[in-house]
Every structure is written in C-alpha cells, then in structure tokens.
C-alpha cells in the first residue's frame, strides 16, 4: 500500500488522534493511579491528606509476618495454579482432539466454569468442601479416606482454594492447548503414526510442538494467579488466621482498616513482583518460541 499512496496520504488516513480518546481514559483511570501508588506508599495517607514518612510503610510491610506470608502465598498460589493447569489441560486437550465421541460436549462442559462468577464458584465449593457434611468428604469417605478440613486447616486452605481456581480456569488452558495441537501440521503425526504408540505421539510430537501454547498457558495463569482476589476472599477471606492471605487480600484488608498508605505499598510490592517475574519470563518464552 505504501508503494501506491504517498506517505502523506497514509498519515492523513490513519491519524494519531484516534489514540486520544482511549489514551485519556487509560491515563486517568490506570496510569495516574499506578504512578500515584508509588508516591502514596511513602506516606501516611487518609485519602484527604498525606504525610510523607519515607519507607516506613515498606519497613512495616516486610516486618509484619502477616504481610510477608501474603507475599509468599501469592507466589506459591501463582506457581501452583499455573503448573496444575498445564499438567491437567494438556492431556485433556489431547483427549479432546483424539477420535473420542462427544468431543464438543466435553469441551463445552469443561469450559463453562470459566464464565461462571467467581463468587458463585467460591460459595459452591465452600459448601462442597464443608468438613463434616460436605459432598467431597462424603464421597472420599466411601473409599475410607478420613475427613479433610479443606478450608479450616491452615496448612491446607491455600491449596484448597488453588484447586478450586484450577477447576474454574482449566477450561481456558484447555482451549489454548486444543488450538495449539490443531495448528500442528498433520505430516508430523503421520511420521509418528508409523511408530504407532500414543506415548510416542505425545512425547515427540505434541509436547515439543505445542510449546508455544504451553508458554501462553503458563504466562496467562501465572499473571492471573499473582493478581487473584475474588476466590480467596469469597472462600477464606485470607484465613484461617492469615494462612491463605495473598497480596491482594492484604491490600484490601489494609484499605478496610484505613491504612491507605500501607495498602498502596502493598500495591507497589505486587506491581514490582509481577514486573520482575512476568517480563523476564515473557522474554525467555519469546526467545525459545518455535515456528511451525
């Protein structure tokens, strides 16, 4: 197109001001608050006036066991959910791209929880995971497995919520893997079919060639894992104690308690955590990406 039309015409056809309406909204409601968070995190802040107190909020943050637990839990939660989603969704995607019947129905059923409200999912699993009469323990009891206090045991609560997160989100991971597997040229499978086995197909064709999909799934679920709030807040509110607190629930609790400066500091910590973890990961994935 540049060859037939003069550059000036192109400039006039695609004016820069088309960026402006979106830019203004994004700047006011996203960029400005993000930048302000850095400033307010250095203050004692009541929303009306802010007193500069230097790094006190951060000092408090890193010395408070509840807040450092939140930081650690955020990381565990993100690693656990993104890992499990890959491990579960890849075999599922393989199964649902094979010659199995009812493929479409299965895909739909597994995907549907993605669209259900997180609060509703939290309430439902809160009931299912109820320790004495909940359906999950009743079912496990049939096999002689003793009752598990899914959400009440401090060592377990975070993992239980993470499992529910995987249940709700595995559908996205699955459709990404399905798209990835379907984009593998058939010749690769033909070559593998000569050798027969499903395992060979998985190990030497699907696993290496759906690498891009794997990276996407890890990246997406890692980001959403670091930012998670709704599910934890609905199911445990960070409890018992602060056993399942994550950064976002800490931020909300500090906000509720009126420690706005501390809450902003929590936001900055989350911002830094996301940036130092996600960007290098993305860079790495881009470097080892494969072309089909």
């Amino acid at each position: 197109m540049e060859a037939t039309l003069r550059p000036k015409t192109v400039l006039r056809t695609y004016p820069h001001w088309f960026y402006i309406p979106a830019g203004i909204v994004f700047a006011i409601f996203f960029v400005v608050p993000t930048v302000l968070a850095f400033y307010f995190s250095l203050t004692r802040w009541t929303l009306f006036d802010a007193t500069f107190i230097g790094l006190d909020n951060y000092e408090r943050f890193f010395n408070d066991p509840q807040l450092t637990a939140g930081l650690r839990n955020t990381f565990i939660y993100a690693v656990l959910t993104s890992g499990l989603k890959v491990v579960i969704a890849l075999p599922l995607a393989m199964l649902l791209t094979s010659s199995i019947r009812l493929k479409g129905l299965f895909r739909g059923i597994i995907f549907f929880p993605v669209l259900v409200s997180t609060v509703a999912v939290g309430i439902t699993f809160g009931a299912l995971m109820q320790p004495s009469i909940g359906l999950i323990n009743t079912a496990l009891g049939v096999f002689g497995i003793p009752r598990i206090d899914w959400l009440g045991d401090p060592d377990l609560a975070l993992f239980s919520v993470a499992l529910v997160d995987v249940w709700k989100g595995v559908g996205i991971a699955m459709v990404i893997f399905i798209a990835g597997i379907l984009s593998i040229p058939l010749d690769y499978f033909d070559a593998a079919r000569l050798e027969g086995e499903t395992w060979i197909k998985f190990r030497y064709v699907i696993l290496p060639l759906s690498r891009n999909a794997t990276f996407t799934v890890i990246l997406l679920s890692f980001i959403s894992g670091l930012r998670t709030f709704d599910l934890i807040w609905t199911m445990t509110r960070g409890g018992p104690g602060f056993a399942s607190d994550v950064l976002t629930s800490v931020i909300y609790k500090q906000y509720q308690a009126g420690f706005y400066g501390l809450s902003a500091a929590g936001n900055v910590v989350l911002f830094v955590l996301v940036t130092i973890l996600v960007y290098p990961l993305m860079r790495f994935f881009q470097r080892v990406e494969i072309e089909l």
Partner: protein
Amino acid sequence: MNIRKLIASLWIDVVSLIVISIVFVVPFIFIFLTAAKPRTEAAMFEFTWPSQFQLLENIKEVVEFGDGRIFLAFANSIFITVASVTLIVLLAALVAFVLQRRRDRVASAVSSIMLAGLIIPPAVVPTIFVLQEIGLYRTLWGMIMVQVAYTMPFAILVFRTFMASIPGEIDEAAIIDGASPMQMFFYVILPLLRPAIITVIVVSSVGIYNDFTGPLYFLPGSQNVTVQVTLFSYISQFTSQWNLLFANVVLITIPPLIMFMFFQRQIVAGMTAGAIKG
C-alpha cells in the same frame, strides 16, 4: 468393526464421561438441587432430589428480599456492562485500526502500553483517590470508566489481530473514493470488524458482569449494588438459608449461561486471541 474393537474404543469414552461428569457437572447439579430444596434440607448439603421441589418459591423469596434489592443490582450490573462494553468497542477499535496500519515508533509505544495494561495489576486505592478528585467515586460512571480502562488492552489486542486480516487495498479504495478517516473507520472498517466485535462484546461483558473486586472498591453502599456484591453480601445475610443463597447463584448464572449457549465459539476465539500465533 467387530464387537471387541467397539468395546475397546468405547471404554475410554465411558471413563472420560464418568470422570468429567463427576468433576464438572456434579457441582452444577448440586447448585440446582440445593436451590430447589426447603431450608433445613438444603443445609444438609446432600446430593439428593428435594423432598419438595420449590425452586421458584426460593427464587421469589430471594427477589423479594430487601425490597427487591436484586432488581436494583441487576439494573446496575446491566447498565455498567452495556455502557462499558460500548465504550470499549468504540475506543479500542479506533486504536487498533491506526495501530495495525501504521508501523511507526508511536505504534510500538502504544503496543507496549497495551501489553503493560494486560499484565500490571491496577492500583486500587489510588484509583479511589482519583475518582474522588473528579467526583466519580461511588458513581456508576466512575465504575464504567474504570472497567473501560482495565478491559481496553484486551480489546485492542483482539481487534489488532483481526485488523491484520483486512487487506490494505480496501483502505486504498476508500481513500481514492475520497473518504475521510472518520468515514473510512465507521463505514468501512467497523463493519468489517464485526466478528471481532462480537468476540469482544461477549468476552468483556461476561468479565465485567462477573467482576466483584471493582464494585467492592469503587461502588460501596447500598445505592449502587451490583449482582456480584449482592451475592457476596448474602453469604452473611442468608446464614443457614443455603437454599436462598444457591437460588441467587442460579439467578445470576443465567446471563452467562445464555451467552455461553449462543456464543461459545466467539468466546473461545476471544480467550485464545493473541495466544496462538498462527
């Protein structure tokens, strides 16, 4: 095919059916059954058919609770969703149009900002401060603008990917016919973006309708309740009235269910957009 082969090929189907049903269908049946039970029976959390099927009565009770607060919540949620999604489609399409067609330094800067918007967690309390300063705190329009800012990067990504499949010759023809940029955008590009627009509408409306964190921070108070916040507050208000709580779950799951039945393909396309480079 002989019988043995048929059985061999069937067993994996049957096992999958059983496992997937237990893991993914049973929770939904549980929601439905509990929502249809009398109060004491629902609190037993059993996976049984209600002794007395009263789903409609329970829903009626939820609807009447708190002077029909749920109507206000639905009205607010729908207004926020429709207004946000309209703005998102319009503003994001404008950006994506220029972004994909111009490969200059500004475009790459805009792309990086978009990427940052997809990754960086929003700073909530400072956002409250900004909303307060401009008089939009606790207002539906404040919530709408925030949703627009948070969801636009995703919409731009979807539109930009789709723009690449609209050939530049079409623009050229419009230019030769003397179309202004605005005319070209509204009469040529926007109609061609239709499939991508449907995807963006469906995915972002489900996301905004289901959003809980946003209204929790930016719309406190009983005037501006949304469906998710109402549901959350019923957890403590309906203690031991599990039938009503689950009736509310059924009620607010209907809109996404309808979306899912009609637009499953577009939703999946949207969620994998930009994920797979094809």
